[in-house]
């Protein structure tokens, strides 16, 4: 019946060995976007419990003055793990789970563009999470905060492997996130159903599409920073070690150039959820679709220009402060546009106060408050006073919990019927809602006051200062309300999954495509898509006499998914290499004693570079031969491409070898650290490109391209290969040619 699960079926699936094996395999090896979405959310939920328990211990320790429940070091570890877990292992997987499940349905796609990449992206999440928490057993969890400021995070100050586990875990999670973003972009561009033009995308899809670009801008910067940190810790580099010529402030720039966009990376999907729910429960189309959509783009562009407001207390100088103040204040405009549009959507609507809508309303109020305290942080003068106090802790918890968690708590009962076929309990949902509203505000409103009273953050205990005790106690009591609300929520999920009211296809009378299929949807998502001419196709079907105005033309252009995907990936690589090159230039401008760029053998490198550039030409010839179906010629040119790439790599090995022989290695000085890092990562990319080309050579040899198969995958591999060559142009110019011009 209707695809829902009964408790008998579930028992059978768990107890019967044959069925259990079937389900294990079906879930562990799945490439279906709906199952992967659910797996993402379950992972997020597990870590939500982990991170929540960590928070509980933090608050218990801070409940009373002069408390010694936790060792100071344990406290540091707990708040590091809590922050890292909540951002990378709770907020991101939960939001990505919703996106994975809902986005392909909303655009009428059968699956994500690259289902296996999707599975890879998901499995990075539990792997990263386990790596991070394994550090506890492996000799000491990281105890430096989720921002891991250098030089505290460097070996001389943190000698346990905790930071290494932290950095590798975040790197792995970052890879998963980038693959998710590449997939999302490609899915939206290349897999839309008939009539679903870009201008008709539901806002949830649009915002996640735009957000994926922000991921591709921000995450590679962090990955580059993590690579440098690991090189410092494992290979004795000096990127962030001031006493060896490195720069601790550089780490802060890199981290916050990622860290501030990250706030928007997790808040934009939440905005998307709100933009879906408020119209449905107000029984009105969204007010000013174009403004909500365009302000998302404005947020993405601006959010990459504001990271300095995290560093006002570092002492960047007055000009830098001033510019970052202005950009930080500017970003309040597109965000404010959204809040006004959501409010205007509710205005004059027939608002239904179901649980999802209750969470939306709480979101609106709490997020506006978070935005106001955010604007106060944009002012450097005020920021100097409040930066390292509980005022800031309160501010960002209002964003992360008051906005993002509340949006997800609303989105869960909204989309749960689609995922399970059953409604969640309204009464239990209201319990969760009120427990969370009371608990959240009890915990965090008072922290603003505590901060203004001067309580610093990141301290494990505090003396008995008048007023601090009861405020902290109140804050701690709130946690128990949130904990109780979460227990009710877990019970609600489990109970409703088996016993909830059967939902039907479209329980909320919503208008987007995910409600046009059964609940839960069949494996291929849709039997047949309804006609799409506007932004609310299901409204048009339900009200044929007064449909929405037709938006634009019906014609949908779907570029090839292989090429789109590789271009999105290359876009992310630009950020990675850009960061490495900028870091190289930064230290190039502060020359140190010892080996420098003048010692490099430029003519020899130029010869090897010509080989690499020539390989782009030979690849193009091979592509031409493929189009003309001349197998021999194609194999020949491809083989030559690989040979030329190989010669370049050998040249690099030779260069490294000679440097090692003269006693220059990565740890010698800043030049050698940056030189080996930059050229090494480029060499690694050449190596990966060679492996890809060898696979293609093998496939072509086997005759896989002989028939009518289009060469789009081959072309996509070519894009990557050309990109690697273009990167070398920039490396060559900065590392080898620039010093000649001095």
């Amino acid at each position, binding site marked *: 019946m209707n695809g829902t699960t009964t408790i008998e079926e579930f028992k059978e699936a768990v107890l019967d060995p044959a069925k259990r094996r079937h389900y294990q395999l079906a879930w562990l090896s799945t490439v279906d976007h709906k199952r992967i979405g659910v797996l993402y959310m379950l992972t997020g939920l597990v870590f939500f419990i982990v991170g929540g328990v960590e928070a509980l211990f933090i608050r218990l320790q801070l409940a009373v003055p002069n408390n010694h429940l936790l060792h100071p070091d344990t406290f540091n570890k707990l708040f590091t793990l809590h922050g890292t877990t909540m951002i990378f292992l709770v907020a991101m997987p939960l939001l990505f789970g919703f996106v994975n499940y809902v986005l392909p349905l909303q655009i009428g796609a059968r699956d994500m563009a690259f289902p296996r990449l999707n599975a890879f992206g998901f499995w990075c999440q539990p792997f990263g999470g386990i790596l991070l928490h394994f550090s506890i057993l492996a000799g000491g969890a990281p105890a430096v905060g989720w921002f891991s400021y250098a030089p505290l995070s460097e070996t001389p100050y943190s000698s346990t492997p905790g930071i290494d586990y932290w950095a590798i875990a975040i790197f792995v999670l970052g890879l998963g996130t980038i693959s998710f973003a590449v997939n999302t972009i490609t899915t939206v*561009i290349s897999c839309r159903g008939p009539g679903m*033009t*870009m*201008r008709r995308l539901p806002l949830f899809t649009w915002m996640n599409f735009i957000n994926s670009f922000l991921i591709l801008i921000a995450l590679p910067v962090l990955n580059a920073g993590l690579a440098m940190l690991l090189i410092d810790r494992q290979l004795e580099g000096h990127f962030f070690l001031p006493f060896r010529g490195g720069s601790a402030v550089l780490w802060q720039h890199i981290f916050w150039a990622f860290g501030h966009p990250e706030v928007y990376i997790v808040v934009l999907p939440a905005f998307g959820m709100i933009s879906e729910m408020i119209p449905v429960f107000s029984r009105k189309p969204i007010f000013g679709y*174009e403004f909500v*959509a*365009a302000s998302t*783009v*404005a947020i993405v*562009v*601006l959010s990459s*220009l504001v990271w300095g407001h995290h560093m006002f207390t570092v002492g960047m*100088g*007055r*000009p*830098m402060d001033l*510019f970052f103040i*202005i*950009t930080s204040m*500017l970003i309040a405009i597109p965000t404010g546009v959204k809040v006004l549009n959501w409010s205007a959507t509710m205005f004059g609507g027939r608002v239904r106060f179901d649980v999802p809508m209750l969470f939306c309303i709480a979101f609106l109020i709490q997020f506006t408050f978070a935005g106001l305290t955010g604007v106060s942080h944009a002012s450097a003068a005020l920021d100097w006073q409040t930066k390292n106090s509980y005022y800031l802790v309160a501010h960002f918890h209002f964003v992360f919990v008051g906005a993002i968690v509340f949006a997800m708590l609303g989105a869960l009962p909204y989309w749960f019927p689609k995922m399970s076929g059953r409604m969640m309990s309204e009464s239990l949902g209201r319990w969760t809602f009120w427990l969370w509203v009371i608990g959240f505000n009890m915990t965090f409103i008072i922290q603003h006051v505590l901060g203004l009273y001067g309580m610093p953050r990141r301290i494990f205990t505090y003396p008995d200062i008048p007023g601090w005790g009861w405020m902290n106690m109140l804050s701690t009591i709130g946690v128990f309300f949130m904990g109780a609300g979460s227990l009710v929520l877990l019970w609600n999920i489990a109970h409703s999954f088996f016993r909830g009211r059967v939902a039907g296809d479209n329980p909320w009378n919503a208008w987007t495509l995910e409600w046009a299929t059964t609940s839960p949807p069949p494996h291929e998502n849709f039997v047949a898509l309804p006609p799409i001419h506007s932004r609310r196709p299901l409204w048009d079907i339900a009200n044929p006499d007064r449909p929405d105005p037709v938006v*634009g*033309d019906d*014609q949908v*252009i779907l*570029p090839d998914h292989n090429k*789109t995907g590789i*271009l999105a990936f290359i876009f992310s690589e630009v950020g990675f290499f*850009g960061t490495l090159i*900028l870091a190289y*230039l*930064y230290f190039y*401008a*502060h020359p140190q004693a010892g080996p420098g760029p003048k010692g490099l053998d430029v003519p020899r490198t130029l010869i090897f570079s010509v080989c690499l550039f020539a390989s782009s030409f030979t690849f193009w010839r091979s592509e031409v031969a493929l189009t003309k179906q001349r197998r021999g010629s194609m194999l020949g040119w491809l083989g030559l491409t690989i040979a030329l790439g190989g010669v370049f790599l050998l040249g690099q090995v030779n260069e490294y070898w000679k440097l090692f022989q003269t006693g220059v290695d990565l740890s010698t000085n800043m030049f050698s650290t940056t030189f080996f890092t930059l050229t090494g990562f480029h060499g690694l990319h050449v190596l990966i490109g060679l492996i890809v080309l060898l696979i293609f050579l093998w496939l072509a040899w086997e005759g896989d391209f002989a028939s009518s198969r289009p060469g789009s995958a081959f072309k996509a591999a070519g894009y990557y290969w050309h990109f690697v060559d273009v990167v070398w142009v920039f490396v060559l110019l900065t590392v080898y040619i620039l010093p000649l011009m001095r």
Partner: protein
Amino acid sequence: MTTYQFFTTAWTWNSIVLLLSAVAVLGYFFTFGKRGRPLYFVGAVVVFLFALISPFSALANGYLFSAHMVQHILLVLIVPALLVLSLPQSFSLRSPSTHPLIGWIAGVGAMWLWHAPTLCNAAATSRTVSAIQTTSLLIMGTLFWWQLLAPREEQRLSPLAGIIYLFTACTACSVLGIILTFAPVSICPVYQHPVDRLGMLSTIRGDWGLTSDRDQQIGGLLMWVPMCAIYATAILAQLARWHSSPQPEQSNA
């Protein structure tokens, strides 16, 4: 010289610039008459004159790198945009220089090329090089904006392609801005030890508090942040154009 004296007296009444502007205004009305959009053209001339004869120009002329950057931005982004906007609907250009790649390279190249230390120095000291610079900035800026603001819709990039065009240009200029902001060495050494022609140096360094380090930092930040804000505004304009266009979407991803 005090700040007040400076802003009242340091106007560069350059006869060639004034003459050229007058000829341009006459030529515009003579060629297009009422068919054009004269307000944009007058705007372009006013901004052009402001960039070249106001006290900003005197500062840019060897005193302050940041003032030079303001001049640079006005000449490469604001004036050409207004110029292209002032053209009548019937106007059209058919030449290979209107290829999008050329437009992009011209727009971004105008930033990078003229901030190579040698060229930057030369432009700040030699009047001839400065004139060449001004002319080239106007031409390159026009080629850049042509792709987005050409009078005829069919000669413009599609809105989505326009967004990619602008976003990549914004990134390329931000990188240069970041380099200028964080560079510990002077990119344009002329501004480090200005020749004090107007007796303004003590006011600038003292009253205004603009040391040469701080000056270059502001210059870099100007290229990085307000320039990107201009591109971002243009991106929003492209989105508005996309949402209001009735013709089929053209995806250029």
